[in-house]
């Protein structure tokens, strides 16, 4: 391997490491890293010496910024939808960049490629700098870039960004319900990926003096995708292994009979298939690894108490009407949740309980009506904004972050509820404030696990949890956001009798700590035992509110439940 080839491989590794942030860590299918590499290369060549004549560093920086902006823009629309749209958007971008380069030969040099007509020299009289960029210098520069990126990624993964990434990868919808701004994080990740792609392109064009469409084609995008997928959950050395394989691939292709370009394509496709098979096998074999070796949580303060006896209203909704098409699921419903009380929401199937909870949680915008949190209309839309206002909901189905131990899942909740500015950057730099925040977070996680009776299973694999523990974990995550109002949709579903008793205890304790807890529940024994107040919905309308005994006695309720007419 010549020095030039080594330098080229190292610059390619920068692109792969950048892509691994999106694919490996955030679980985003990005198929357009080649386009960002192209922007870096073409931008540097066009703007720098030999082109528009900007200093080389400035030209490269500008190209990186443009690529990052492009990544942000592409993610802007697609990140609000399912992850797969990002695959489509980046795949289209890969082809757009490729076809643009071919379609406008006067600008991009056509199939031959764009030649950088400048000596590989960095001269800065101001800094007294005069460096010849020999291949050996490139090897050094690219290697340092790779090491810095790898170290940064390893460090990031251990801090708050690691929680964000795990949430993006394992359960974006759940993360959103815990207040994690999923779309913003996706944009940030793709911006980083694109920027590193452009760094790789800029380095390569200075090294080779040329950027040709065939070298930054959609095939490159796919090869980088394969390289990164190959690593799977392996961590930073996955991309390293993948890029090593990519550098061997052309040699293998040349040795095969027939057109070498075609052979490369076939080999890439075969690699993709192999990677997919490996992934499937692994997903069957791998039982999520428990987070062993993680420090045990330090003892922690209590979740704060409110003054007992007073029950201020924490959440108030009135005139809520919500429809699905022609069906009016909730019809002018009103509900009041008070601090220190467990409030049960009951009613026959299809009476609109889940719809009402979705409205309260900010997941569904009602056709009419108002929701006030702490007497004020919460700013912002969606569940993430509601979490910041202090209202967190648990979904009816149990959703787990399949690869994260319970304590880490609870930490995602902490992260969603408190959003300190530049937390990721501060963690990367290891500032005192970030260390303090981490200690606080760990203490809060421990307290929450204790409140929800999950301390014993804090570090186990989530697949080992019983249904009841999974349900409690849902409550724990929501509680960890710092919410004062918890909205629990059928928390007892699937629980054994013992687990129901635990749940009853947990709910009473939460209310005792001054929280307002709303519970949708079918089990009337549980409701009678745990609820301070009950609201009964029937056909979307509130037909009774009061203490459990009062509600039970109401003829309207008996009619709704027993189906007696007249």
């Amino acid at each position: 391997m010549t020095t030039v080839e080594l330098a080229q491989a190292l610059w390619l590794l920068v692109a792969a490491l950048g892509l691994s942030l999106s694919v490996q860590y955030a679980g985003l299918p990005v198929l357009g890293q080649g386009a960002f590499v192209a922007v870096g290369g073409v931008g540097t060549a066009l703007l720098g010496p030999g082109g528009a004549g900007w200093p080389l560093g400035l030209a490269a920086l500008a190209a990186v910024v443009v690529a990052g902006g492009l990544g942000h823009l592409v993610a802007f629309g697609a990140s609000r939808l399912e992850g797969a749209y990002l695959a489509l958007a980046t795949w289209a971008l890969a082809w757009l960049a490729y076809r643009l380069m071919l379609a406008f030969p006067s600008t991009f040099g056509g199939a031959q490629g764009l030649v950088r007509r400048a000596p590989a020299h960095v001269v800065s009289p101001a800094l007294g700098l005069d460096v010849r960029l020999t291949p050996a210098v490139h090897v050094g520069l690219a290697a340092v870039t790779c090491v810095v990126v790898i170290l940064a990624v390893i460090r990031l993964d251990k801090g708050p960004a690691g929680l964000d990434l795990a949430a993006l990868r394992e359960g974006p919808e759940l993360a959103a319900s815990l207040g994690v701004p999923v779309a913003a994080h996706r944009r940030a990740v793709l911006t980083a990926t694109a920027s590193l792609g452009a760094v790789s392109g800029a380095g390569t064009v200075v090294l080779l003096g040329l950027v040709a469409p065939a070298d930054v084609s959609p095939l490159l995008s796919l090869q980088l995708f394969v390289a990164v997928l190959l690593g799977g959950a392996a961590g930073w050395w996955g991309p390293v292994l993948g890029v090593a394989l990519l550098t061997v691939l052309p040699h293998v292709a040349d040795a095969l009979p027939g057109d070498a370009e075609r052979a490369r394509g076939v080999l890439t496709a075969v690699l993709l298939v192999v990677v997919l098979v490996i992934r499937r096998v692994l997903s069957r074999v791998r039982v999520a690894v428990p987070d062993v070796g993680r420090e045990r949580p330090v003892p922690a303060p209590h979740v704060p108490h409110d003054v007992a006896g007073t029950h201020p209203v924490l959440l108030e909704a009135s005139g809520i009407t919500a429809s699905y098409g022609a069906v009016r699921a909730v019809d002018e419903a009103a509900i009041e949740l008070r601090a220190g009380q467990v409030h049960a929401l009951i009613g026959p199937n299809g009476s609109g309980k889940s719809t009402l909870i979705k409205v309260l949680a900010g997941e569904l915008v009602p056709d009419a009506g108002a929701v006030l949190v702490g007497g004020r209309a919460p700013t912002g839309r969606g569940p993430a904004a509601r979490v910041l206002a202090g209202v967190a909901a648990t979904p009816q189905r149990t959703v787990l972050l399949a690869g994260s131990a319970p304590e880490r899942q609870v930490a995602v909740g902490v992260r969603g509820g408190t959003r300190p500015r530049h937390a990721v950057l501060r963690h990367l730099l290891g500032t005192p404030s970030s260390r303090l925040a981490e200690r606080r977070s760990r203490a809060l996680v421990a307290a929450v696990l204790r409140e929800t009776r999950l301390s014993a299973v804090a570090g186990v694999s989530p697949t080992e949890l019983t249904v009841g523990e999974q349900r409690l974990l849902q409550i724990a995550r929501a509680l960890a956001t710092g919410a004062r109002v918890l909205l629990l949709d059928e928390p007892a579903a699937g629980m054994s009798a013992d687990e129901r008793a635990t749940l009853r205890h947990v709910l009473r304790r939460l209310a005792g700590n001054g929280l307002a807890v709303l519970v949708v529940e079918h089990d009337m024994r549980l409701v009678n035992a745990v609820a301070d107040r009950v609201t009964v919905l029937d056909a979307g309308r509130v037909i009774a509110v009061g203490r459990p005994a009062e509600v039970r006695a109401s003829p309207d309720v008996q009619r709704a439940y027993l189906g007696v007419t007249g």
Partner: protein
Amino acid sequence: MDPGVLLQAVVSGLATGALLGLVALGFTLVAGTVRVLHLAHGDVVVAAVFTGVLVVLGRTPVATTLSAGPAVGFALLVLAAGAALSAAVGWLAVRPHLPDVTTGRSGDALGWVAALVAAGLLLRELLGLLLPEQAYAVPDPFRLDAITGSGVFSLPGGGTLPARVPAVLLLGVAIGVAAERLLVRSRFGKALRAVADDPDAAALCGIPARRVVLLAFVAAGLLAGFAGLLYAGDPGRTIGVDDGVVLGLAGIAAALLGGLGSLRGALVGGLVVGVAQSIAVTQLGAEYADVVPLGLLVVLLALRPQGLRR
């Protein structure tokens, strides 16, 4: 812009748009049924055409006019190949990554994305090994250019177009509308919507969900076959084995424009993309032929992924 030239550009754009609509229809059908973005759909279109070419004309095809027998055989072969390839891609690449109630497996978007790009790449490269030239002229089994005696079609305003252009437009729209009506009205269409709404509930109602999904891919493949025949049969055009990706992405742009999942929207979206492309090419130059649909798709996804309807 001279109105005669504009009319010319619009009509030929509508013709391209009609066949793009068929590609978009297939894409939106799959997306609506199994919530998968069929990234290899364009490759299925082109691979279907070349399968017919390989069987009927061999590995060194030359531009010919097929006589009646081979023409019918070629057309049927392309349709069958479209259906078979689409079904194979659906079964081998997509199905293993779909959510499955019986095993409790959840869907794996990263998996089907990777599998679909692998499938598309394999189709392209394997065909490329068999057919090494840049591009090939493909016969038109329908002989649409002979539809008027002179081979040209006069437009009001003095412009003329090849006779096949309005024929492609009519045929494309007819196939699209017929397919759309069939999908809305038939029992199969109802089963599709049921599976799309809730596969578990559909299965409980006795709808064979797996078979319905497979049939959705077959239907998309048939539409791909028709689109391929209309696209490749143009005597003024040669096609290469790699052309499928951009064709497919143009179809996806059309499907998104019409609102993903909407069959009628896909047909209309196809016409819009076709006209935009045609006007750009006549006004700005042939180099914009690929750039316009690809750019449209990127911008659409960045700014308005839900389409223009909502």
